[in-house]
Each structure stands twice: as structure tokens, then as C-alpha cells.
């Protein structure tokens, strides 16, 4: 079994109009090499589902997004995402499904469980329900008769995830202390593509001591792509932190995105490494302290 893909092979499996979920959280462990590959591709009209960071920002500035399903978009230490803001404030991103972070989790979980919805109290009394008229309510069939939100499933055509280590068969390991909701993205998706800091032989995964870091099963993984430094400029704990200087520059270039695109998007990963100071530099960025 060999699921190793090149970036081109990965892109070839995506289509216009797909719903694509992106793992990670804000500026943390985003599959940025995969996102940059989408930026370079002719893919269009995508529905993006994300706890958003620069993945969403880049796809906004590239005009790739037909609809955004999100709980937030932020760069962590830089709270507001400039590219996402510009798209919203210029009216280029009107088609949004803004959710509570937990509702987004519930939608992925429902899809993962092959359920049409999962019930929750969340959303009542807020404008989340007002702006999302497709989200219906139900009455508990039990004696409590409680009114509940029926959070609809968010099935994904593809999920994109970045991990620390993988093998050719699609066994993956996330060593960062927080796996976020990547397992649910994988389980909610028809196909999951995982970029990994490194691809090793199965017997190099570390055996039983390391198996706990395998957060979802390989049957969910369609392709693995070796992308060292592939989360940059987001963090990939414990390997490297986020590149605050790069994120500041990225934010500042919102008005002249073409410039940023030329330097950092329209280049292959090794040229990208060079443009940001080398792979060794990425790997030496210390982890942030909150």
C-alpha cells in the first residue's frame, strides 16, 4: 500500500465547487503547502470549512472561495486576519456560514457519524440562527420537550491536514499537545490529504509508545504528501513555532497581494523555503508562549 502523493497528484484529485475542510486552528498547524498548491491551481468556487487562519486569508485573496463555513478567522497573536477582513469589507465574501466553534465541531461530528444533524442548545438567542436560515430547530421527543438546534452535518469532499509524521500507508502522528479537530475533519471527509513534516517506514513510527499520537485511522487517509516546513508561516508544535514576522508582512501586503503572491505563492515548496530564509530557519522558529 502506497498513498504517497506529489502536490500535483493531490491537486489532480480536487475539483471545482468542492467542499474542502482545512484542519489546524488559527495560525496553528495549517496545511499551508497544500493551500498554496490550491492557490496556484485553476480550482475555483470552493466551499471552505475551517477554524480559519492564513489558509482562509490566502484563499480569500486568491478569489477561490464561493462560500466560507467558519467559527472565526484569526492569526492568534495578530487577532484579525487582514485578507479575510478585506474580502468581507469589500463585499467579495458575502456567502458565509458563520457558526459557533462548537456548532462547527458538531457539524463535522454529525458528518463523521453519517447523521443528518446533531442536537444542541447552542445558537439560540444569537444571530447565528438569524443569518443561517438553513439551520432548523427541533423539539426533544422526550418528556422534557426541550427546543433544540438541529446542527446539520457538514460533509466534506476533501479534508486537508498537516501532521508531524506519517508513513506511506497513511498512518499519521500529531505531536503537538493539541490535535484540534483534525480527527473530525478526516472522519467527515470523502478523501483526506495529509501533508507531513516527514514520511517514514511504518516501523519507524515509534511503536506502542507513540501510537497515542495517531489521532485518526489510516482508512480515512487518501494521500500523504511529504512537506517539511509545510505549515509555515503557521506553527507545527513541537517542531516549530509560527513566523510572526512573516505573518506581519503577509498582513501588510493585503493591498498589494500580487507582490506577496509572486514571492511566496507562485513558487514551488523549495523556492518557497528559499524565499523565507531556508527550511532550517523555519525549523528553528521557537514556539510561541501565550
Amino acid at each position: 500500500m502506497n498513498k504517497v502523493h506529489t502536490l500535483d497528484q493531490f491537486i489532480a484529485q480536487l475539483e471545482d465547487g468542492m467542499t474542502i475542510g482545512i484542519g489546524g486552528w488559527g495560525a496553528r498547524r495549517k496545511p499551508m503547502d497544500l493551500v498554496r498548491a490550491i492557490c496556484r491551481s485553476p480550482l475555483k468556487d470552493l466551499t471552505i470549512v475551517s477554524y480559519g487562519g492564513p489558509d482562509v486569508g490566502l484563499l480569500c485573496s486568491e478569489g477561490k472561495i464561493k462560500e466560507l463555513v467558519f467559527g472565526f478567522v484569526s492569526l492568534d497573536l495578530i487577532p484579525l486576519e487582514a485578507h479575510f477582513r478585506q474580502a468581507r469589507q469589500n463585499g467579495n465574501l458575502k456567502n458565509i456560514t458563520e457558526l459557533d466553534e462548537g456548532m462547527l465541531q458538531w457539524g463535522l461530528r454529525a458528518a463523521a457519524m453519517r447523521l443528518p444533524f446533531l442536537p444542541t442548545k447552542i445558537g439560540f438567542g444569537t444571530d447565528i440562527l438569524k443569518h443561517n436560515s438553513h439551520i432548523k430547530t427541533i423539539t426533544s421527543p422526550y418528556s422534557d420537550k426541550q427546543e433544540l438546534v438541529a446542527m446539520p452535518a457538514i460533509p466534506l469532499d476533501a479534508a486537508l491536514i498537516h501532521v508531524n509524521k506519517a508513513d506511506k500507508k497513511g498512518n499519521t502522528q500529531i505531536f503537538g499537545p493539541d490535535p484540534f479537530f483534525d480527527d473530525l475533519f478526516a472522519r467527515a471527509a470523502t478523501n483526506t490529504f495529509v501533508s507531513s513534516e516527514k514520511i517514514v517506514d511504518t516501523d519507524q513510527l515509534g511503536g506502542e509508545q507513540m501510537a497515542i499520537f495517531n489521532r485518526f485511522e489510516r482508512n480515512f487517509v487518501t494521500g500523504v504528501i511529504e512537506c517539511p516546513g509545510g505549515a509555515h508561516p503557521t506553527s507545527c508544535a513541537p517542531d516549530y513555532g509560527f513566523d510572526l514576522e512573516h505573518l506581519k508582512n503577509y498582513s501588510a501586503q493585503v493591498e498589494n497581494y500580487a507582490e506577496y503572491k509572486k514571492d511566496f505563492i507562485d513558487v514551488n515548496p523549495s523556492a518557497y523555503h528559499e524565499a523565507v530564509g531556508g527550511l532550517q530557519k523555519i525549523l528553528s522558529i521557537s514556539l510561541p508562549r501565550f
Partner: protein
Amino acid sequence: MENFKLADLCISQAAKVWVDDGEILATGIGLIPRLAAYLSKMAFNEALMVTDGETYLIDEPFPLGVDRTLKVEGYMSYSRVFENLWGGARHAMVTPTQIDMYAQMNISCIGDYEMPKVQLLGSRGFPGNSISHKNSVFIPVHSKKSFVEGEVHMVSSLGYKEDNLYAPEIGKVITNLGVFDFNGDNHAFRLLSVHPGVEVQAIEESTGFAVDTSQFTETELPSPQEIEIIEYLDPKGMRHNIFGG
């Protein structure tokens, strides 16, 4: 006017919101609320659970902005935060961009929803937090921009509106001018204490809705012990920048 620092006064007042909460997760989002949660654990309620700001529960709060050693006691990934808060065992202190007379809060966007004047974060966990557990509020600049007339532009968190199926639990609201709650008649916004040197009229002029000022005291100054702990937690004095230096 007595000699006190506004940041210390606010942190001291904010810390007191968790005094009677028992063994729950105290989450202070932003520097002042976080220092307040840490102070509360150290001075008032040692049963509180607090995090390192990322993934771990810590046994002892540590000074911010300097080298640190974590004393980890437990695990609080995002997934665990949700699992815990949905059970109600959390009291957060948040800083919304807008809050209104119903205690509805907004961190999503300002202006028209389709094409906002200012796009902010999105609603984050506010809808789930506000329906699941108690929330207190810290607002560093008390003005009509944050305490808005009418309703907030995007209701990110549930408030005390009559036709709501569920009611929130709002704790204290602490600002640079005073301490408030929403426990006046019909959950009216109510002044509890005014900070030394602040005129009540200034509060009314800075709030976009009615303030019940029928009964209030002067805000108690932080004790020397509290100030000592605050200095320990924020040795670089980052807290003072929150109020514009």
C-alpha cells in the same frame, strides 16, 4: 484622588468574580482578565482551574512575559475545553467589541452583515459559552462605541431578551470607570461601584443605554497583598499598556 493604578484596581475587582465559584475552569481572555483569573486562584479561590493560555491546566499561575516553568496538573486541549464548558463548569471573562442593554455581545463584525464596515473575528465560542456558563466582562475603554445604543450589530452571545428560550448568566462588568452588573429591574444594567475620581455623569454619558445608578459605592482599592501578587504575575507591567499607558 487616591494613589492607585487603574490596571491593578480592575484586576483586583475582576479577580473577585470567581471567589464563590468553587472548582470550575476560570478563563480570562485577554491580559487583564487572565491576570485576574490567576490572582483569583492565588488569593481567593485555590480550587479554580486555570490554563497556561494554551493546552495545559496549571497548578500554579506563573509570571507573564518572562521565562517560565510550567507546573502542569492537567490537560485542556480545545476539545476538552468544549467538553468541560458544555457541562457548565466554567466562568469566563471576555472583552466584546460591543455590548448592549440586553447584555448581548458582539465580536463578529460591525455594520452591515453582508458587507461589514469592520470585520472582526467571527463569533468564536460566544454562542456556546453564553448558553452554557457564566460570563463576566472587562471593557478597558467605557464608551458608547462599546456600550452601544440599540442592539449590537451581530449578536454573538445570548442576552436577556424576553422572547429568548434560554437565559444567560452574566456576572460582573468591569470597565475603566466602574463595576456593573445586569441585575437591576428586568436585568437592567446597574452601577455597583464607581472607581475613585470618576463622576457618575461620565458613566451615563459614556453608555448608550440607561444605567441604574440608584445604589452604588466607591470601588474598593486593591489590598497590598493583591498588588504584590499582581506585580509577581506581571513583572514587566504590561497591564498598564491596556489603558493607553
